[in-house]
């Protein structure tokens, strides 16, 4: 199994407060890796280390090494790194433009100007997220008029417009209803043919359904990682067992 991302002893700090403690883990290519754990255990912080957004924050920093392929991410320019590792947040946040403009915003910024190419990118990524059939007639409509689930899929499609290698999603379904979540789960299963996916989720059943690999975090530590079946079926650590059986969380 080829690992596309490797973390070695990554620790993160907000001021003096430590939020990640020597986290080591790896992410297999073109699979779905779920990160689970009680809130406040450092899941979002971990994602922000991976795309280096944490170092843009005041007073926040991280130590340790993260390898994207063979390359240490510290040797990659921040913007470049974030083009290669996309991220979608919990609250759907389409830009206050039309659907089409949301889809062409980043490509334009990156220097794509031919209308044909922009159209191609927009259509291709909208199709990937299953949104194209729903919005093809109204690409000029404001993205804010879409439903919550559609908005979140648009955000995923938008993140894909820069062709990242890895797509990270931070609790992408917690603001959505069950039906919209199901659509997104199905879509992610499709997307993993093309992209490596890391998803933080509160919903254990969701992790169980879609993830190939699961990482359990607790209090800034990675307690256990492995194939999803093993983590859920046969957890080795006490904390994992307690968490999965709902003792805390």
């Amino acid at each position: 199994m080829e690992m596309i991302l490797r973390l070695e002893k990554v620790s993160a700090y907000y001021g003096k407060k430590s939020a990640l403690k020597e986290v080591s883990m790896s992410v297999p290519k073109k699979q779905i890796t779920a990160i689970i754990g009680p809130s406040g255990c450092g899941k979002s912080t971990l994602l922000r280390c991976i795309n280096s957004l944490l170092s843009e924050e005041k007073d926040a920093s991280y130590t340790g090494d993260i390898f994207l392929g063979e390359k240490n991410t510290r040797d990659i320019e921040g913007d470049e790194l974030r083009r290669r590792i996309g991220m979608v947040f919990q609250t759907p946040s389409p830009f206050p433009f039309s659907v089409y403009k949301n889809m062409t915003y980043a490509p334009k910024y990156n220097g794509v100007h031919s209308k044909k190419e922009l159209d191609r990118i927009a259509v291709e990524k909208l199709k990937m997220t299953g949104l194209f059939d729903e919005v093809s007639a109204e690409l000029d409509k404001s993205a804010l008029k879409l439903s919550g689930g559609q908005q979140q899929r648009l955000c995923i499609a938008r993140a894909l417009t820069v062709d990242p290698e890895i797509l990270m999603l931070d609790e992408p379904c917690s603001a959505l209803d069950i039906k919209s979540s199901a659509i997104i789960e199905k879509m992610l299963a499709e997307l993993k043919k093309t992209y490596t996916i890391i998803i933080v989720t509160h919903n254990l059943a969701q992790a169980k359904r879609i993830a190939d690999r699961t990482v359990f975090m607790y209090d800034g530590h990675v307690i256990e990682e492995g194939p999803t079946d093993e983590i859920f079926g046969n957890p080795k650590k006490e904390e994992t067992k307690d968490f999965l059986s709902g003792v805390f969380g």
Partner: protein
Amino acid sequence: MGKKLNSAFLLIITVLTAMALLVLAFVIFFIVKEALPVLETAGLSELLTGSRWMPVDYGTSGGMAFGLFNFIAGSVAVSFLAIVISSVVGLGAAMYLSCAAGERTRAFVYPVIDLLAGIPSVVYGFVGIVVMLPLFLKAGVHTGSCVLAAGILLSAMLLPFLVSSCSDTMLRAKECYMPSAEAMGISKWYAMATIVLPASWRNILFSMILAVGRAMGETMAVMMVIGNANLFPNILGKGETIASVIALEMGTAVVGSAHYHALYMAGLILMIIVFFINMGIMLLRKHLLNRGGAGNA
């Protein structure tokens, strides 16, 4: 019990709202009633386009005249200057506060801005006379009093409100859109200019509506530095605004005289102008709502 309380509450707020509307209607009615009699002495076209203002018959040649044109132009010019200056400076400051400044800077600057908003306008006028007019005098402006001085002073008075409301709006837009933009590798200032600013336009325009009303109506500070001469407003020359002519002359106008009614007419015209400017901004805002908040801004 809860139901009774509910309907009692509803009754109270309905009555209060009705009273507010009633007061407004009464004010408008009163102003219109006191303004209209002037039309027996001077025609509407003289009022709006005439530039001779001789509201009391001193037996001078030409007799009485009620041209408000210079005052109207003065009000519009001073307000326009003030809005332009304060918008440019205010937007810059708001952009800095919302996007470049850290939490700590904001925590310090916001209270200071609120403090500025609380300073009485006569104090602004005083500072204008003591600090600004000598500078204009030195620069060669006769007596120092001029339209530009009034515009600058007024813009300083509008700034606190514009800065705090615009930076609030922009901060909210930034928190909403910036993470996604940054996560795609878009640079911060590019995202500021192309997402946060357009997303904030509607609220910024709304703040401007309030600012226009404030600017057109501001009396004391403007009066203290504009020179109060019935001249067509020239940027470095003296001028006079509707608000200042009313404030200066209402006390001496004989109740019921043409002069008295003419001043009410001036007030009515001021109200109508503010109303139309606000309508204009509102339409612009609606246009942006249909296009920008939605559509492809």
